[in-house]
Each structure stands twice: as C-alpha cells, then as structure tokens.
C-alpha cells in the first residue's frame, strides 16, 4: 500500500488487522506486542497531549523505544515539525542544532538532558507541518538538516516494499538509530508499510541477544554491524532477509552472511532521497535495481544523478545555496560515481566529493573534519583517509616521537565524536601533504602510498 502520511498508514492497518502486532517491545517475561489498533490509539492520545503544549517544533532524541515512536507519530499528527537527533549526540552539538532547527520542545528519555538543553530552545517555527528533519551524516554541530516529509518517507517505504516485500507474518528487527534516515525507513517504516511487526531493538547492549529474544525474519544493518553479527554467528534460524545499506560492504562479508543461509540485499540511497533509490534483488548484491519511484542517470563525468519526485527532499533547512548546489531542476547530484549496466542496474564505483563513508554508515566530510583536526593540532599538514578495515586514519607531518602529545591534543575533539569516527592509527611523515595547484590534497596519492 502507498500511504501519504503516517496517520493514514496506522489507520489503514488498524482497520485491516487491528490485533496484529505493529511493535514488539521488551516485556517483563518476553517480547510485548503492541497491536496496530493499540499503536494508533496511543499515537492519538500522545497527539492530544502535544497539541495542548502549543509547541511547534520537537527535537526528538531518538532512542528507538516505544515511547519515542509514539511521540514521533503523535507530534506529526498535530502538525509539529520534528527534528530527528541521535541519542548519543553530545550536549554541546545538540544545543547548536536546536537553535538552527527552531526547536521549541525536547523529547528525551534522559530528563537531565532536557533540563540542560532548555536554554537553547527557540520561539518555534511556522508552517512546519508534516516535516521531518534528518541530518546528512553523524549529527555534529556542523551538520546540514535535510527537510523530508511524511509523504516522501512513506513513498520511500513503499519503494522498499515493492523491491523487498514483507508480509504480516514477518518480524522486522529495528536495530539502527531512528535518527538516521536509513534506520528510520528501513528499520521501522518498511515493516509498518507492509503491515508486519517491527521489533524495537533494545539498544547496543543487546546486539548479541535481540535475535533469540525477538526471532526476526528480516533486518536492516550497516556494514559494521553485519561484520559483528557474522563474526559471532548471531543470526536466528527464522531470519530470511538482510538489507545492508548506508555504506560500502566488502564482498567477503556479504558472502559470509549468505553462507549463514540468509538472503542478502544491498541498498543505495541518501538522506536527501529519503533513503532507498536502488536495491539489489538478484544474485549480485552490487547490481542494484532502481526503485519504482526513482530515475537514475549517469552524468558525463560519471556522477550518479537521481530524479525522485515523490521521495526527494524539500531542501537543506535554511541553506538555500547548499540546496541549489545539488538539486538542479529536480535532479539531485549525489557526488557518488557509478554506472548503469545493460540491464539498467546501478553499480557504485566511487566518490566524487571529498567524503568518506564509514562502515557504520556515517559520512565524514573531509574538509570539515580535517579543519577541526588542524585547529586542534595547529597544523594544516594532515590528511584523513580510510584504512582497508574501514577505520579512519590520520597522516600527519610530524615526528613519530610526538604521538603521545598529538593524541592528547586530539583528545577533546575525539571525545565529541562517536567511536566509529575517531582517528585510529596515526601515520607520520616528514613531507608536506601532496596538493593540487589550487591547494586541495591529492588523496589518491596518499591512498597509493599507503598501498591501498
């Protein structure tokens, strides 16, 4: 079914299959089911509470629990703008983002956080109805907010359901953060759009045992998580479908997952396109069929261009120039390089932008990241690159004997970042960074020197 709003989605399934489980949550003696009818009713109650606050823009620290989901749907039900924030976002960055996105209300399970961030709240927003703001990468204070809508997200979920249909007998395990669009669409909406049950994962501590607890049949993961699951052979026997997204995935990892007896698909999409644009459904996980609502073309320089009228972002929040730079006459310039094969399937071949995509799905925008490292270290002679295992490493012009002092200088910055974004190995060189005539770092030379 194609829906235009979350309310329409919930009302449809509450009417069709009122007693079927919409959510599976942690219970006292085992998973606790929340039926579609119960979920729809809970959302209505929450909506009424939120309506009475008179607030217009909710910053939601999305922990992925039942209360979070109900509050999210309830806020949209009453026309609030909702800002999706990672639950692990440091307070300093969160304060900046609250002001940028015009939030006048915070939802978090952490009461202390609500109190600490209250001074950053604003007077709210006009005309925010139906809008959800997601961030383009790991949410730092410099991130751009992408304006999506209930309609664009529902369309994206419909796209997914056309490519990889779930049934009402399925249980989709939602492990990924809902503050990221891949986690939101492919971890939650995909299941609800199909009338399946969505098991709300119990957090990072339960990555190892949510499988036995919920017995899912489908799951969406990022490459880093897949590596962990495969290494420890955690999949339950009922699992039949694994969707990988948000970053490139080594072929040996995909083969190892297949060897465990599950169907593995790979998805390509961006926050700006409300997640999925192409998904592999055949034997080759790297040959991705374009979703029904999307059109993919390849520019003369190899850049992937996307037209997705139903799924495209409205723009970057309050950053019109940035929007115009990438969205031209309805065509989104992805910054990714790729090709279309003779069957019209998309293959990703590289990146045009100065950007790294980490195994956890987070994007590192290098000029910004390197500027922060430069400020911390007091030198511009450095470059960040990815090692073969996907870990960010630093190349620095300095004496190797200074490593301890370098790490101390980097510590305050590293503590602000999620672990996956922190610098691992530091390589020292006595030469300055190789640069182009315009001063840009020749990254390919660095990778070549590193033997990658």
């Amino acid at each position, binding site marked *: 079914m194609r829906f235009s709003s979350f309310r329409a989605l919930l009302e449809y399934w509450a009417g069709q299959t009122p007693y079927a489980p919409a959510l599976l949550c942690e219970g006292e003696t085992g998973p606790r089911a929340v039926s579609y009818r119960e979920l729809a009713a809970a959302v209505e109650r929450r909506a009424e509470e939120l309506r009475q606050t008179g607030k217009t823009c909710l910053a939601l620290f999305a922990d992925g629990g039942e209360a979070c989901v109900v509050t999210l749907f309830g806020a949209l039900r009453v026309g609030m703008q909702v800002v999706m924030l990672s639950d692990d976002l440091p307070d300093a960055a969160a304060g900046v983002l609250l002001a940028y996105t015009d939030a006048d209300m915070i939802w978090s399970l952490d009461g202390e956080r609500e109190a600490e961030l209250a001074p950053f709240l604003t007077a709210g927003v006009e005309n925010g109805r139906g809008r959800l703001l997601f961030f383009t990468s790991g949410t730092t204070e410099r991130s751009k907010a992408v304006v999506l809508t209930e309609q664009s997200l529902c369309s994206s979920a419909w796209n997914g359901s056309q490519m990889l249909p779930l049934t009402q007998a399925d249980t989709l395990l939602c492990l990924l953060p809902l503050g990221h669009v891949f986690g939101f669409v492919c971890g939650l909406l995909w299941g609800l759009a199909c009338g399946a049950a969505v098991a709300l994962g119990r957090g990072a*501590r339960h*990555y190892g045992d949510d499988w036995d607890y919920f017995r899912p049949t489908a799951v969406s993961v990022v490459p880093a998580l897949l*590596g*962990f699951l495969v290494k420890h052979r955690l999949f339950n026997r009922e699992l039949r479908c694994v969707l990988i997204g948000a970053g490139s995935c080594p072929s040996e990892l995909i083969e190892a997952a297949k060897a465990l007896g599950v169907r593995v698909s790979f998805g390509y999409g961006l926050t700006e396109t409300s997640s999925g644009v192409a998904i592999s459904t055949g034997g080759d996980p790297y040959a991705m069929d374009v979703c029904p609502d999307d059109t993919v073309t390849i520019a003369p320089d190899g850049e992937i261009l996307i037209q997705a009228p139903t799924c495209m972002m409205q723009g970057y929040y309050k950053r019109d120039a940035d929007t115009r730079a990438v969205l031209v006459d309805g065509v989104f310039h992805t910054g990714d390089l790729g090709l279309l094969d003779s069957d019209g399937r998309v293959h990703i071949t590289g990146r045009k932008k100065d950007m790294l995509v980490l195994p956890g799905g987070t994007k590192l925008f290098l000029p910004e990241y390197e500027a922060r490292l430069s400020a911390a270290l007091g030198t511009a002679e450095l470059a960040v690159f990815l090692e073969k295992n996907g*870990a960010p490493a630093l190349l620095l012009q300095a004496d190797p004997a200074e490593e301890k002092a370098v790490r101390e200088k980097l510590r305050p910055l*590293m503590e602000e970042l999620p672990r996956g974004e922190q610098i*691992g190995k530091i390589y020292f060189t006595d030469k300055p960074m190789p640069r182009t005539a315009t001063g840009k770092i020749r990254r390919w030379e660095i990778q070549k020197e590193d033997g990658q």
Partner: protein
Amino acid sequence: MTRQEILEKTKKVVYDCMPELKGVEIDEDSVINTDMGMDSMNFILVVCKLEALFDVKIPERQWNKLSTLGEVVDAFEKRINK
C-alpha cells in the same frame, strides 16, 4: 575489588573478545581504538561483557570518552566501589 583486580579482569575480557591480540601486550596506557584493532562493535562487546562481569553499567553517553584501557578501568572502579 582492587584496581589491579579490575585491570586484570578487563584485560582478560579484551583478550577473550579479540583473540587476534594474542601475544600483544596491553596495559593501562593502551589506546583502545581501531589502531589496536578494536572497532566500535568490538568495544560494545567488551563493555557489555565487563558490565555483566562486574554487575554495573556505564552510561552509553560516556562510552565515547573512554580512550585508554586505564580509563575503562577507572569507569568500572568508580561504580564497583561506590
């Protein structure tokens, strides 16, 4: 429990979770990051096993601040001996 006992148990858990570190000496100053081979998923595994072993929890918001093995030991010591 003494700090030394916590350190030894922590090291054992790290070695159990990361057999590839066999033969590599680790101490309180060891930086537990991808340089050591500990990615974010391995880190979660180690912390969860330590939480179960010591029966205390480290709030997830503090995980990013634990850079060295010594800081992991500090975090657990503070809560165990509270």
